[in-house]
């Protein structure tokens, strides 16, 4: 019964503004087109070290996946890719505004999202939204959505985990809409709903005898 209550949407990896505007927090999305992986290794190289991109973006894809695939390259250059799962995105927010400008990305796919402050500061002005993977992680289901690996860039310099993998996808998902076109966050909405029960669970506990620097006792805080 739970599944029927969530809206399921098929979306291009080069979506139009209208398509993005229509997405609501909590919608379930399946992608078709091409996605590429890029995380800190790529961001540092492009944003900080000003290396030119090795592929044409956003023409090839406007969907940046925070992911290192479970993949290997054979001696003859052929590629095995089994499972793909996202890595936690909050660590990458400092590069994103510049990255949007360079890459023209409209979809950030990852794990756990970012804060609504990040969305309003970096995503909304660049017309982008955040889709979170589910679980985590649904590596086998996402792996089934991979049609083929089109190319892999910078694997010699960055290693397989940090390289850019360009992959063609079909029925690639599920993802959940975490940020909408206005920069609201589904996770923050859920956090607010959990806050009251969480506070009740703390009744009868007390702070540790020996404190630690930088601690918070505000249960609504996130540590990201």
């Amino acid at each position, binding site marked *: *019964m*739970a*599944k029927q209550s*969530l809206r399921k949407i098929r979306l291009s990896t080069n979506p139009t503004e209208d398509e993005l505007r229509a997405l609501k927090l*909590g919608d*379930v999305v399946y992608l078709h087109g091409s996605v590429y992986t890029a995380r800190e*290794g790529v961001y540092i190289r492009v944003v900080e070290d000003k290396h030119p991109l090795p592929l044409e973006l956003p023409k090839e894809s406007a969907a940046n996946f925070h992911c*290192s*695939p*479970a*993949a*290997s390259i054979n001696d003859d250059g052929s590629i*095995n890719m*089994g*499972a*793909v*799962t*996202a890595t*936690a995105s909050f660590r990458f927010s400092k590069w994103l505004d510049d990255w949007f400008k360079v890459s023209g990305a409209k979809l950030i796919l990852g*794990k*756990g*999202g970012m804060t609504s402050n990040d969305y309003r500061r970096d995503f909304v002005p660049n017309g982008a939204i955040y889709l*979170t993977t*589910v*679980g*985590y*992680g*649904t*590596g*086998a*289901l996402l*792996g*089934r959505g991979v049609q083929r690996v089109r190319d892999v860039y910078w694997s010699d310099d960055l*290693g*397989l*985990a*940090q390289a850019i993998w360009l992959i063609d996808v079909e029925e690639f998902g*599920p993802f*959940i809409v975490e940020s909408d076109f206005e920069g609201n966050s589904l*996770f923050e909405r*859920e*956090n607010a*709903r*959990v806050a009251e*029960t*969480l506070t009740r*669970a*703390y009744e*009868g*506990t*007390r*702070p*540790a*005898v*020996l404190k*630690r620097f930088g601690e918070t006792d505000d*249960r609504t805080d*996130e*540590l*990201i």
Partner: protein
Amino acid sequence: MISLDLIESTANELMRKAAVEIPCDYLTALQQLTAEEEASLSCFVLETMLENYEAAETDGRPMCGDTGCPRWYVKFGNESRVEGGGVGLEAALRRATAQATHDIPLRPNRVHPLSRADHNNNVGIGAPEIEYGFEPDGEWIDITTVHKGGLFGTDYRMLFPSDGIAGIRRFFLDSLAAFGKRGLACQPAIIGIGLGGSKDACMVLGKRAACLRTVGDQNPDPKIAELEEELKELGNSIGMGPMGFVGKSMVVDCHIEVGYCHTGGMQMSIHAFCLSSRRATARLYPDGRTEYRTDPQWFTPYQRRETVEWLNSP
């Protein structure tokens, strides 16, 4: 004598089983949680995970793309002998780790912490970790691999006797709240808790409690078993489910292991073994037989012994 060929081929198969097949005890418990979960987003996540396990087994692909950091636990029956000794055994486990990483394939997660150099095979300085245990009698060795994720859900705190059970509850909740939001801990998880020892021993105990005991298993000390149950219920009452969404599926099970500690302290560590609780074990015999299982059976009366001598010795 247990041959190196047998060790290496078995280790290869264990790597595959751990990455692809969700252990039956975890699967059954997750099915139960899914049936009981009421919140729609949490339900969707749990149902999708159950589909994902099926897809992994059907396709023979890893259940999660972050295939964790492979590590090994080797337990020797006291009469066992291994071809090539400890050095031969370690070489075989390192070869199997590299080979399986390429063949399955797994994600080459292991890099140098500073240079970030990646050998693309999950082998490097101190990787994979290999830990050892011994058991009275037996000509067998047990080899277990665990592929645990490595970033979120683990913490350590120096507590004191005056913190008491209330302090344990507090640190438990702090950790769930810190790592449960947005689902960074990939819950519902098997929560392992180490109590006592020293800082390093406490971390080892907690990690083993999470990774080397099965769902439903209880500590033989009734007081500890009671605390395990209490913390499990507490964790499932914070209103949070998978991905930090509203729900009640947070803790699949809670396992506590203790070690004697300094008289002034009560060290506590907490570890979350995730929605891809990857573990697989095999017992190897000198005649070439191999028996696979999902229960590492690590914590035996011998491992938890308190006395100077092993009183049950033959």
